[in-house]
């Protein structure tokens, strides 16, 4: 089940980004998208641990470039969301398959998918809302808000890193 969902997520991420770039007639980006997708697939088959993280970085980078090139924001967001799902699912599968014994595997998978759906769903809703709301800030206000966001995030991440073993 999870494995199938991983294939679907990767396929969805690749298709969304490809479609976004195709609609913007930026065909030159199709090759790197397909290449990165193939690399991720190959890395999964070979069990290379660094590939999902690289895949996440590259696909989100491509989505950001797409937005910067003013391509379809919905498709870029979809690509990014699907990439995050693929990255999460691959890490989950590694944990499960590396454990040899998994108690109530189906329950564990179902609960994980539910949490992922909740996180991705709320993330998508908020991101869509952010994309559809048009608010104009002056440079100073934008900078202040940006700094506030960075400080807040730094504190949160710092806390997580301190607490996590």
């Amino acid at each position, binding site marked *: 089940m999870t494995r199938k969902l991983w294939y679907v997520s990767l396929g969805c991420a690749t298709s969304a980004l490809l479609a976004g770039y195709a609609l913007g007639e930026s065909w030159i980006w199709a090759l790197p998208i397909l290449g990165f997708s193939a690399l991720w697939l190959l890395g999964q088959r070979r069990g290379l641990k660094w590939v999902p*993280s690289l895949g*996440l*970085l590259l696909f*989100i980078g491509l*989505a*950001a470039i797409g*937005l*910067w090139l003013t391509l379809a*924001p919905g498709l*870029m*967001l979809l690509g*990014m*969301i699907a990439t*995050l799902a693929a990255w*999460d699912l691959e*890490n*989950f599968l590694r*944990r*499960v398959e590396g*454990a*040899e*014994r*998994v*108690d*109530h595997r189906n*329950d*564990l998978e179902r*609960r*994980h998918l539910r*949490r*992922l759906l*909740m*996180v*991705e769903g*709320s*993330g*998508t809703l*908020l*991101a869509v809302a*952010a*994309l559809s709301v048009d*608010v104009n800030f002056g440079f100073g206000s*934008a*900078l202040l808000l*940006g700094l506030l*966001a*960075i400080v807040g*995030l730094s504190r*949160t*991440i710092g*806390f*997580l*890193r301190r*607490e*996590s*073993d």
Partner: protein
Amino acid sequence: MRRLLLLSVLVYLLLILGLASGNGGIIALSIPLVIYLTATLLYAPESLQLQVIRTLSADRVSQGTLVDVRVSITNLGSHLEEVLLEDVVPNALEMIEGIPRALTEMTPGQTILLEYTVRGVRGRHVFEEVKVRASDRLGLFHREASYHAPTQLTVLPHVTWLRRVEIRPLQTRGYAGPVPARIGGSGVDFFGVREYQVGDPMRWINWRLSARHPHTFFANEFEQERIADVGLILDARLRSEVMINGQSLFEHAVHATASLANTFLNDGNRVGLLVYGRFLDWIFPGYGKIQRERILQGLAQAEPGDSMIFDNLDYIPTRFFPVRSQVVLVSPLWEEDLPILIRLKARGYQLLVISPDPVTFEAKTLGSDPTASLAIRITRLERTLLIRKAQHVGIQIVNWQVDKPFDHAIHASLGRRPHWYRAVGLGIRG
């Protein structure tokens, strides 16, 4: 931790790029990642409070016996969404069945059992800790802990049950036993003749001798049989260890020592053990089953080791063994050991050397190369010469080729011959 770092870097990059380019869309891309991080923060596991109990089906077993291990882990704290439990199994134990780790979810009060079966080589194996790694469902935030639940498994050396091993120490102890005491009295073997004394059984009277002396009766005397002091010395010097294709000559020596200790103790003798290697490890002489257990436990821990001081047998503490008692050395035997053995013999100890043959043991792997064959022949000659020299000074030697069973080797050399065999004078060995 790396995943957390990666997500953080991505969020920062998207924010900075979005601010730098003035593109709100790029900033919006960071929102799902921030939500992902927030979910981790919300559902991160609290401090771990687990109770770990490990039980073994047996804490002392002989080699090859299977041991069932059962680890019970109870969650005394809060709900753990995803937890990896792992019992750290000592390296020398072979996993036969079951898995010592599990990925699971633990509700408060829930108990998870890890059950598996192991088999071990000789030695003392300590199960130390159970490792626990709990995380949220997304696997981003971890809490790790190790729970100490020390449990010890002793794998005793293999013991071969031997029939009686004939020893003849110069001095025995006061209690009846199986060892000829070199003293006349009641027994089985003829010892001598003395003048008849009141109380001697009539059937002891030597009628043939009495007939020659009309006014005196003579009675036969028999050799008393008593228990003896036996000191076992296991040579655990590193030079006495030969490893061939994962097989160890020292293991054969340990097996021989355990089998001899078992036999001597079963015969009622007082037996002590000295392991002579990296340091001196001894078990004071004693009797019976408790002493057998002590010796087997001591042998379970014996390891070959190197020491500059104990590199030769000069430092055998002779005061450990009663004067004129039986000393049994289990050693492959080296040329430089002979003078020390002669010295021990001169002090009155009756010496028996059980020598696992290192030449035959190693020769099996050398093939039929002419140079190797010549080397083997020379080494074998040197060893034969060494054994003959030792036998010449009255040291009993059993040259044990370890591919043959120990009981066969020991009985071929030391087994007690039948009465008729000894009666015709064939039972006496050097």
